[in-house]
């Protein structure tokens, strides 16, 4: 019968979008964007480092210097290696490629015929097997072959150190960004609540239980924390997607940029950002409302 028949829904007690919250929303969105980038970079630094490490660990480089007496030294070394059970494959670097590596130092002039270029053999071995370089080199020497073996130990150690440094920095950056997010959320929640102090007081005055009010604010702030996190994370994923397209042609292992096409793991990780932000916002609002009610409204 009444004029209110067409009022299908009650007005929300706490409207979702209020202009007073907008600046903080934008800050949180940007922070969420940065947090997503930094989180995914940490993850990709771990997986890239792991695959590089594996490549280094399971390869030996054997440099064979041919002599006038044994011109097929490389072939002999190869056959020795082929008899080792742990060797999976042996590849000889194209001599022209070796020459091109030297070009910066020697120029384009062809080498005199009597100077032989060393042959480079790349040997991949079974994972987890440690070759004793000395034993191998002695074996070559006893066969009269001039060959040296490098298992990239030095390189690998340096690599590990710099990877560790990069990862430490990335994790530190993430922790700082996330601390900023948590602080900003708590600040935003408090500011948001003090701007709505009258609503809290009125709800209390008309007999709303503290839980009712706390839930109301908690939901509302959790939702906006989630939204800010979601927008930030999606923006980060989109940017990574396009950067991934641009760098797609680069050498396979040069993956400095997190590859978001590589399965759902990255997207799930990015989804953590809005979820955690919602959690912090909801909890912070809950605590602040109850504290306000017990400290000031309940004398």
């Amino acid at each position, binding site marked *: 019968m009444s004029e*209110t028949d067409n009022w299908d829904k*009650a007005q929300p*007690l706490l409207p979702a979008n209020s202009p007073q919250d907008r600046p903080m929303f934008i800050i949180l969105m940007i922070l969420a964007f940065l947090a997503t980038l930094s989180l995914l970079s940490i993850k990709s630094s771990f997986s890239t480092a792991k695959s590089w490490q594996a490549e280094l660990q399971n390869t030996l480089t054997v440099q064979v210097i041919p002599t006038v007496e044994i011109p097929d030294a490389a072939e002999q070394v190869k056959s020795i290696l082929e008899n080792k059970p742990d060797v999976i494959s042996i590849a000889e670097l194209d001599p022209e490629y070796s020459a091109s590596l030297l070009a910066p130092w020697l120029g384009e002039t062809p080498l005199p015929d009597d100077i032989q270029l060393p042959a480079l053999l790349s040997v991949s071995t079974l994972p987890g097997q440690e070759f004793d370089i000395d034993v191998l080199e002695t074996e070559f020497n006893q066969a009269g072959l001039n060959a040296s073996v490098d298992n990239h130990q030095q390189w690998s150690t340096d690599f590990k150190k710099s990877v560790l440094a990069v990862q430490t920095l990335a994790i530190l950056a993430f922790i700082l960004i996330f601390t900023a997010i948590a602080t900003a959320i708590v600040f935003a929640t408090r500011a948001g609540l003090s701007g709505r102090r009258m609503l809290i007081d009125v*709800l209390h005055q008309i007999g*709303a239980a503290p839980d009712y009010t706390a839930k109301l604010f908690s939901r509302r702030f959790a939702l906006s924390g989630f939204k800010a996190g979601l927008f930030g994370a999606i923006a980060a994923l989109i940017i990574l997607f396009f950067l991934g397209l641009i760098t797609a042609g680069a050498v396979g292992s040069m993956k400095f940029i997190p590859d978001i096409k590589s399965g759902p793991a990255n997207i799930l990780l990015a989804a953590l950002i809005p979820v955690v932000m919602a959690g912090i916002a909801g909890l912070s609002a809950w605590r602040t409302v109850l504290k306000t009610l017990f400290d000031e409204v*309940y004398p």
Partner: protein
Amino acid sequence: MSSHPLSTQPEDEDSIRFEHVGMRYGRGEEVLNDVSFTLKKGSMNFLTGPSGAGKSSLLKLMYLNMRPSRGLITLFGQDTSQIDIGAIPVLKRRMGVVLQDFRLIQHLNVFENVALPLRVAGVKRDAYQENVVSLLKWVGLGDRMRALPPTLSGGEKQRAAIARAVISKPEILIADEPTGNVDMEIGKRLIRLFSELNRLGTTVIIATHDLSLIPSGATHMTLNNGVLTIPENDNGSGAANV
């Protein structure tokens, strides 16, 4: 409904009882000094006194906004100092409060503001919609139901605030200067509204500067510098010295 003229009612016939109540803000002077009185159930009471006398402070004690620094306050027969915090919301639902600044929620329209106490109490919208509409018509806001508070006149805000205070049919209505911002004519009408509620059984206490608003038959309490006086010729239906 009016209580018995002879004052030998049991304790629960008293809506509010103050015994030797003192109150101060922080470490300041006492703004209420040894105040004792009883508001009988269903009585109509006015509280007057000069500015700064302590009227608002006395009302704050009644609606559990402040605690006394000494003395005993009994609300619906319960010692307020012994009330469990969890029970306070339930007690608050039994009273309606109108403050001078109205305290309307700015982003809710008049209908929603007035329906708020029912909504908070968990009443379904279908169940309260018609009640709210008819109350709003009764206070003359029938055509302003969807207006937001900032667009209301002072008198309209006041009527909305009063409607919100009475929508859940409180047992006590506490009003602080409810006629503060309106002209004489509207002031008188609002007082008639309170009398109407009182006739339906609500205990009413109104603080006001304006002595001319007090209808005959109502109890008139006076505060001066924190000291309360109640006329001796009180007929026992309203406030009484303890």
